[in-house]
């Protein structure tokens, strides 16, 4: 019922287009994995597709090169919009031709990408922005 595919970054957009024509109507999930100091290349993007007409799932895995850039699939699947923004926010991966690639969960002026493995937990003290002075 579920297939896994490893795709190179050059074939990625084309393969997604083929899947869409092949009857995979939904892109249900898009996320990334950071293999910091464990594997080369460091980042992988994982995309899950669902075909509701055939009751099948397929999962695509793309290894990124050092430029950390991957084509956006928002033009094929509008549902990728928020997911690509989330991956950009959390991992710092750029999506080419994304209409509005801004941070989605963290504040706009945030420094760093929290879900990277070299971003420690509890590193930043909790602070309320522009808190009024207490005399």
């Amino acid at each position, binding site marked *: 019922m579920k297939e896994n595919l490893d795709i190179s970054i050059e074939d990625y957009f084309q393969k997604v287009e083929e899947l869409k024509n092949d009857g995979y*109507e939904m892109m*249900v999930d898009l996320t990334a994995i950071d293999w910091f100091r464990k594997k080369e290349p460091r980042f992988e993007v994982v995309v*899950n597709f669902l075909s509701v007409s055939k009751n099948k799932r397929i999962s695509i895995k793309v290894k990124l090169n050092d430029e950390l850039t991957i084509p956006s699939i928002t033009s094929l699947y509008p549902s990728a919009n928020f997911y690509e923004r989330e991956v950009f926010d*959390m991992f710092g991966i750029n999506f080419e031709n994304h*209409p509005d690639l801004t941070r989605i*969960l963290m504040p706009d002026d945030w420094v760093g990408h929290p*879900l990277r493995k070299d971003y420690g937990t509890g590193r930043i003290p909790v602070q309320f*922005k522009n808190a009024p002075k207490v005399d």
Partner: protein
Amino acid sequence: MMEENKDTVKDVDFWATNSEEGGWNISSTDEGSQKMLDQEDEVTTKIQMGSEVIDDYFIDDDISDDERMILNMGPQHPSTHGVLRLQVELEGEVVRRVQPVIGYLHTGMEKTGEELNYFQGPTNTTRMDYLSPFFNELVFSLATEKLLDIEVPDRASTIRILMTELNRISSHLVALATGGMDIGALSMMIFGFRERELILDFFEKTTGLRMNHNFIRPGGVAADLPDNWQKDIEKILKVIPEKLKDYDEMLLDNPIWQGRLKNVGILTTEECLAYGITGPSLRASGYAWDLRKMQPYSGIEKYEFDIPVFEEGDVFARWRIKVLEIFESLKIVEQAMGNMPKGPFKIQDKKITPPPRKRLDESMEALIHHFKIYTEGFKVPEGEVYTTVESPRGELGCFIVSDGSSKPYRMHVRGPSFCNLQALPVVMSDSPIADAVAAIASLDPVLGDVDR
């Protein structure tokens, strides 16, 4: 009288009330704000408005700039169901464009999930979608069990189904209650929460907590059902259908209710598929897709129930489908109660299940074993897994990457609310602002699930 009021309001400058003290810096109040919508290019607009799929957005050139304004709705707005903030571009009273701004409830739960071991994992995931905590626990447990390649006992599976379906009822009751309140049916608010209390009482009796139960864990469930649990379930099965009849009597043929909901906020099947919308909203748009039937989990294929489907795709259909799904869930609960198998409620695998409390006083080995599991957790073989369950809002998925240690290397939860929220601009655009509130309520987003 009206004129006088207007003038007095005008004199107060809301933004500058604190500025004399020098505490609030006015220039930085635009923190987190995005580009104004009317300055955005065509591609962005297209994606936001859903015109990639079906183009129903036309800009009227005659409208003067005086009538166009950009309004912030939320994040502290009662009808946004939490801390959802919407940038709404209005022309008079018509919503033209919408941009959801989220992240106000972001607490980094996916990062926290990497710090907790598999045994502690459900404590974290249960807090994501706080209206349907059992589903979050279930999907995390199913993913872990798939990596471990184990099967839980029948009794555990049946308890899981019983609890999740009761949870679906309680979650839908909140959706009906708050949805009713947003539209102005205030009695609905009280009714929905009153009936939900019955179910929460049962949850409290079984798990110890009304929310965030941490009850379903990898390997089974935390505790057996309490004594005389059948009596409580029988009461739920008796009371809730009666009360649902009251709701129907009040609302179903009510001309005001119908007028507010029918032909409002329409989502077509194509839009649903393109924006990845699942769950009741997809079924209300005419596509019979339910993971309980199509990709069953925990043995739910053994139960007899129907999937209600509507063709209209409007707010009324999305409201009605939730009512009908409560009836279907009650059927499953009744069957689960009738066929509750006997036996253990946890897997009898010493690697995963801690020894019972009684054994700790008798056996040194049991004490060491207990200590090991609670401090180190259990190791999970390397691999990647994506499991799904049908939560009250749609497909809830859990993606776990294991590197062979006792903590997930990467834990990602595909929240249905996060995905469904993308369709909000499609639903809301070109409708009066009063209908927009009904549309948000019908999509039923839970912000804990959106921001995680």
